[in-house]
């Protein structure tokens, strides 16, 4: 394995560079996935049948979630920065913080789902609610998966240290996490804000 020391650790081998490009292409596919969900969401707006519509939204949990996820995007940026400086401890701390914020997000979202269901808005109620739950749920599932992925990276970095391999993983994970944040901004604007206006 040839290691090019002039580049950051996560880019230092050919394999690592391939993985980063591959992941960008994967993110392109993810964009296509969420674009489909959003397009479908717009098509189903107002198709509420006999069920409730956007009036089920509440602003407080959404703001908490937005805050949690935006902050976590910042902390993971700090984690990558710490990684580039070779500061393993700081990196792990920021990664841990990121995951904690992710957990807050998930907790609030799950509670929000329970409230919806309590108000008689389930995934089976109407076309609109089916796509609403699917869009939010797909994003939420991504965050959940990201949580476990991040956990494994924390374990591996603490176990094996900052190697080209672990650095590469952590960097790719940060791309993923930023992407989820961007998707959330779209959900926040086009689902929640638009719905509550």
């Amino acid at each position: 394995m040839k290691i090019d020391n002039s580049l950051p650790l996560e880019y230092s081998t050919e394999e690592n560079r391939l993985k980063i490009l591959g992941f960008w292409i994967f993110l392109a596919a993810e964009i296509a996935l969420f674009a489909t969900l959003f397009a479908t969401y717009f098509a189903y707006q107002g198709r509420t049948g006999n069920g409730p519509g956007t009036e089920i939204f509440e602003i407080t949990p959404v703001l908490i979630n937005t805050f949690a996820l935006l902050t976590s995007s910042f902390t993971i940026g700090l984690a990558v920065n710490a990684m580039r400086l070779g500061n393993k401890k700081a990196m792990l701390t920021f990664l841990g913080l990121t995951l904690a914020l992710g957990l807050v997000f998930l907790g609030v979202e799950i509670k929000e789902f329970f409230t919806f269901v309590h108000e008689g808005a389930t995934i089976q109620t109407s076309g609109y609610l089916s796509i609403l739950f699917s869009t939010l749920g797909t994003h939420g599932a991504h965050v959940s998966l990201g949580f476990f992925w991040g956990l494994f990276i924390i374990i591996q970095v603490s176990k094996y240290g900052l190697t080209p391999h672990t650095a590469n993983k952590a960097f790719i994970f940060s791309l993923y996490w930023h992407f989820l944040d961007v998707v959330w901004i779209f959900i926040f604007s086009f689902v929640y804000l638009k719905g509550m206006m």
Partner: protein
Amino acid sequence: MEFFERFAVPHPSFAIYASMVGIALTSLAIVVGLTYFKKWGYLWREWITTVDHKRIGIMYILAALIMLLRGLVDAVMLRAQLAIPDNTILDSQHYNEVFSAHGVIMIMFMAMPFLFGLMNIVTPLQIGARDVAFPRLNAISFWLFFMGAMLFNIAFVVGGAPDAGWTSYFPLASEEFSPSVGTNYYMMSLQLSGLGTLMTGINFLTTIFRMRAPGLKLMQLPMFTWAMLVTNVLIIAVFPLFAVALAFGAMDRMFGTQFFTIGNGGMDMMWANLFWVWGHPEVYILILPAFGIYSEIISTFARRNLYGYKSMVASMVAITILSLVVWAHHFYTMGQGVLANSIFSIATMAIAVPTGIKIFNWLATLRKGKIEFTTPMLWSLAFIPTFLIGGVTGVMLAMASADFQYHNTMFLVAHFHYTIIPGVVYAFIAGLIYWWPKMFGFMLNEKIGKVSFWLVAIFFNVTFFPMFITGLDGQARRMYTYSEETGFGPLNLIASIGAIGLALGFIVLAYNIYWSTRYMPRNIGSDPWNARSLEWSIPSPVPVYNFATLPHVKSSQAFWDAKTKGHNLFPDKVEEIHMPNNSGVPFIMCVIFFIGAFSLIFDMIPLAIASLIGVFACMAYRSFEANHDHGYHIHVKEIEETEERLRGANK
């Protein structure tokens, strides 16, 4: 007992029982055979756990050929039923199951793996790479496809086959109108193989972008690799969308969501929209690689460089873009109004322009050439006039007003078979014969090959041309019977006779593979066709590391220029080569995927959740394993010995 009742076939017949016995006996024979010849270890070590793109490619093609056989049997059954008016070979339910299976299998489980097989084998060799970017992901792609295909194929003996057509339009495909688990099979098996397809797309795009040989620029890629590039871009653009559509459909059926229901805010036509936003690019995902194959073969056997390289690339890119904005031409009759239909008509007809450019460029490549009629060339040449008919009828269908009279008729059936068989199937067969020596180190017999070619080329027209006429006379597609007074009888009989000839042609092709494997000579050299691109510069069959040293490329037909102008393609010294380890994890993970999908189909949620955890466990295992799995190295001495042996035998 109640638990097992769900696995019973709801509408059994003698043919289905016979298939059950057949499947059981074949499986038994395979198990006994493998045990008797002590091949389990070989199968596991050399094939199931392989991450070598060439072996994965061969497995794809093998699966595709088996699925071709299955699809062909379905087709013959359909034609047998329609041969005469008021026929009773198949009843309505079975006819519906068979034509649904024919469509899904031919497109998703025959054409797609065939494409991936050739893509896997040829692309890395044409760009001078040692493997693909992510060899293990490649194995996962294959096994996901394979499990999807197997899942779809057991449907008709376990629980019931899908019967709503390959398009599976809602509300027909909903729980209410298709209560058997058949459509669940459709949703889950396509989801699995679609996931594999998406991974392949990511893998090969990364490979083509980053693993090209020193000096090989994008605008010097062989046309086949260019076709792969645009194909994979299309895959990444539309397969996520298909995954979403399939998930919606599955959730509607399994969890009672309201996406495509009638009432409660559901929109049945949303499925048609989502399906075709994926489905139309999908047919270009099939045809663009075919265009690439034809470009390679026509240029090789016209003994000339490809005419108009730049406009060939530009036209492929144009087709790629246009293919994304024409989906509504599949339902002009939905009543979306004059304006929308006009726009989609014009966009659709516009595809004729880049396609026309390609046809003219191929003709110009033939001009001033020195044309040799080898079998791959025959298939490629037959493509031009036959596909032309498919193309011009496509333009006719693109005209929304006239389409009101063609839609849902045999005219449409004739049209898409005229595009997809000469366009895709001929190409894949041509590609298979052309690259066969590279895969296996011997050639396929030319004489037998020509017999199968002429059978297919002639009887294809006998089968499908009459359908244009019966379509214009009002014969609707997908109808299991028609009455005597419609007058469709004689032409349908001709079509059915043609189908027998067509099937015969494919059987001769299979026989050719058998015969050639046994009797064709093995010392064919590395370049039996006197071809032009890099894959012909290395030994046949290709050693595991592909290139002993990486080639240095200066033009779009590097190997040809090396031969004629005396460039040295391989100036480097042999060095140690790093290779990835084989792994059983992809296979095991995909088996778990299979179990999960199967349990969802039959609403066994706990098992589905357990499978999901199993899949994640496999991923977690890999995540840790990767820290100390560094692959292995092939030493210089070993490489030199291998090269000496392979090249020496060729002298």
